[in-house]
């Protein structure tokens, strides 16, 4: 099936979960990423339960604080 990840069209296996997509996409700090699916937040802790569908659009939102003075 075809989905859009961070604005790019991708072909992925049917029924791919958000958790699997995070692995496929090598998401940095997967425990602290915020996921938006079709402009709705996916609740943290449910990534393995949410299966993606044809045409879905996923965005990963990352913590960016910087750090040193």
């Amino acid at each position, binding site marked *: 099936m075809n989905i859009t990840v*961070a*604005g790019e069209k991708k072909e992925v296996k049917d029924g791919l979960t958000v958790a699997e997509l995070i692995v496929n996409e090598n998401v940095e*700090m997967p*425990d*602290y990423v*915020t996921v*938006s699916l079709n*402009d*709705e*937040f996916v609740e*943290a802790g449910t990534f393995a339960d949410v299966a993606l569908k044809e045409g879905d659009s996923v*965005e990963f*939102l*990352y*913590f*960016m*604080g*910087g*750090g*040193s*003075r």
Partner: protein
Amino acid sequence: MAFTNEQIERYSRHIILKEVGAKGQKKLLNAKVLIIGAGGLGAPVAMYLAAAGVGTIGIADADEVDLSNLQRQIVHQTADVGKPKVQSAKETMEAMNPDVKVITYHEFISSENILDIIKDYDFIIDGTDNFPAKFLINDACVMAKKPFCHAGIIRFQGQLMTYVPGKGPCYRCVFKNPPPKDAVPTCKQAGVIGAMGGVIGSLQAMEAVKYILGVGDLLTGYLLTYDALKMQFRKIKLPADTHNCAVCGDHPTITELIDYEQAECDGTGL
């Protein structure tokens, strides 16, 4: 308040813009903006807002200028090493534009002082380097109904978003809680390219100026991300549903400010 001849000349490139004009320039001269963090982000914000004639600029930072800051914190000079960052930033801003009144806060912001510090300002810039401060600024601005612009930078990446009360999600709508200490790399650990503060800080200054002028569309409801290596900007639409947010939602569970544990770099400016 009438402009002096010098002001008409100084601000001529603003005044000629139909979105600014004499009226807009007066708004800028009457505006009060607070910059929290006089580092990589705060430096270009301070300089562009001072140059633009924002009449009152507050700047908060507890740190002193370090040699390792100068690779990106362009408001400070080599001779400023060891000086409080707020003092160094004030000197640069005042030398740039005598119209600007700079108020310095040489202290860490905390739940104790932040509401008192932000209360007199029209717009707040989050130029901080750590998540406890970012969440504190967000929560305080939500509670005090103050607009602010968040930003973060690391390596070759940056991001920003603008919160305006009632106009879209806050930082906590997107990021529920600070990550555990050391879970997310810091600039000290990971590095940051100097010009990134210039790119993202200048965009924060642009948001403040647009807010003051009341022109154009702000980054409310969007997160703008910048990847310098791919040379790609993305304006990511954020979910509009703020009802369940712990601080700006319909039934907030966070009603008092929280001082989260500071990470190892507990300075204020990136």
